[in-house]
C-alpha cells in the first residue's frame, strides 16, 4: 500500500470514529446542564479532562449532589486505562519532551484504537494524531451543541439509534484482527477480553471492566493453542 492510500485510510478511520462520538458529545453537553454546570464548565471538561467516560462519571456524581472529591475519584478510577494506553503508545510517540507532553493530552480510547490498528510506528503516530485531533474537534463542538440543545428533549439520541454508533465503530476497528492471518489468535484474545469485561460489569465500578479485559490476553495466551 502506498503512503497516500495509507493516509487516506487513516483519515477515514479517524473521521468515522470521531463522527461516531458526536451523539455522545451532545449527550455530555446535555448532562452538564442537567447537573447545573454552565457552558464554560462543559467546555472545560471536554477540552481539559478530554476523556469521555471520566467526564460522564464526574458530571454524574456532581449531578447526584456528590462532592468534588467523589467526582474526581470516580473520574480517575474510570481513567486508569489511560495509563495502559499511554504505555502501549509510548514507542510510537517519540520526540522532544514538549512534543510528547502535548501528544499525551490526546491519549484516549479512540486515538489508541486508530493508532494500534496500524502496523508501523510512523503510521501508528499518524493514526494517533489523526484520531486524537478529529475526536478533540468533534467532541468539543458537540459538547457545545449539547449545552445549547439542552432545553430540547434529549431522547432523540436513543430514538434514532445513535447509541449503537460507538460499539459499531469499535467492532470495525477490531475486525481486521479477527480475520486473515493471525485471526485465530485474535479471535481467542477478543473472546477472552469480551468475556472478562461482561463478567466484571456487575462487580466492578464503571470503566474497570474494560481495564480488566487486558487480563483476558494473558488468559488466552495460556489457553489451548498457546504452546506452539
Amino acid at each position, binding site marked *: 500500500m502506498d503512503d497516500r492510500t495509507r493516509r487516506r485510510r487513516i483519515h477515514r478511520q479517524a473521521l*468515522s470514529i470521531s463522527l461516531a462520538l458526536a451523539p455522545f458529545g451532545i449527550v455530555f453537553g446535555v448532562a452538564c446542564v442537567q447537573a447545573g454546570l454552565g457552558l464554560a464548565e462543559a467546555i472545560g471538561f471536554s477540552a481539559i479532562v478530554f476523556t469521555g467516560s471520566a467526564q460522564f462519571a464526574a458530571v454524574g456524581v456532581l449531578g447526584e449532589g456528590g462532592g468534588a472529591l467523589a467526582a*474526581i475519584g470516580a473520574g480517575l478510577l474510570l481513567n486508569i486505562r489511560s495509563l495502559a494506553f499511554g504505555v502501549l503508545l*509510548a514507542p510510537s510517540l517519540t520526540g522532544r519532551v514538549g512534543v510528547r507532553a502535548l501528544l499525551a493530552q490526546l491519549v484516549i480510547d479512540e486515538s489508541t484504537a486508530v493508532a494500534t490498528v496500524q502496523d508501523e510506528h510512523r503510521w501508528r503516530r499518524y493514526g494517533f494524531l489523526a484520531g486524537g485531533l478529529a475526536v478533540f474537534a468533534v467532541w468539543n463542538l458537540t459538547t457545545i451543541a449539547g449545552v445549547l440543545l439542552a432545553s430540547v428533549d434529549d431522547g432523540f439520541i436513543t430514538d434514532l439509534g445513535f447509541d449503537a454508533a*460507538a*460499539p459499531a*465503530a469499535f467492532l470495525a476497528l477490531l475486525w481486521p484482527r479477527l480475520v486473515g492471518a493471525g485471526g485465530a489468535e485474535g479471535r481467542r484474545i477478543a473472546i477472552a477480553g469480551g468475556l472478562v469485561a461482561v463478567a466484571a460489569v456487575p462487580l466492578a465500578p464503571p470503566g474497570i471492566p474494560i481495564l480488566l479485559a487486558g487480563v483476558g490476553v494473558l488468559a488466552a495466551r495460556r489457553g489451548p493453542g498457546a504452546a506452539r
Partner: protein
Amino acid sequence: MSPGFVVIVGLGLGTYALKSAGPLLLGGRRLPAPIERVAQQLPAALLASLVVVSTVVGDRSLVLDARLAGVVAGGVALRLRAPFIVVVAVAVAVTGVVRALVG
C-alpha cells in the same frame, strides 16, 4: 471557584498524569520483548471489551436492547466488506428501526 471548576482542575491534572506517564517517562525506549508481545495483543482484548461494554451494558448491569441488533448488523456489514462509515451507519439505522418497532 465553583465545584465544577474544582473537579475540572483536579480531574484534568489526574487524567493528564495517567495519560502522560507512558509517553513522558518511557519515551521512545522499547519495552522488554515479552511485555511488547503482550502489548501487541492488548488492543484486541481492549477493543472487544469496548464493543461488549458499549453494546450490552447499561447502568452497571447487562442490558439486551436494540443496540445488540444494530451491532450484529454492523458485524454482517463488516463480513460483506463494507467500508467503515457504512458499518456505523447500518448499526445506527438498524438500532433505530428495531427500537421503533419493539419500543
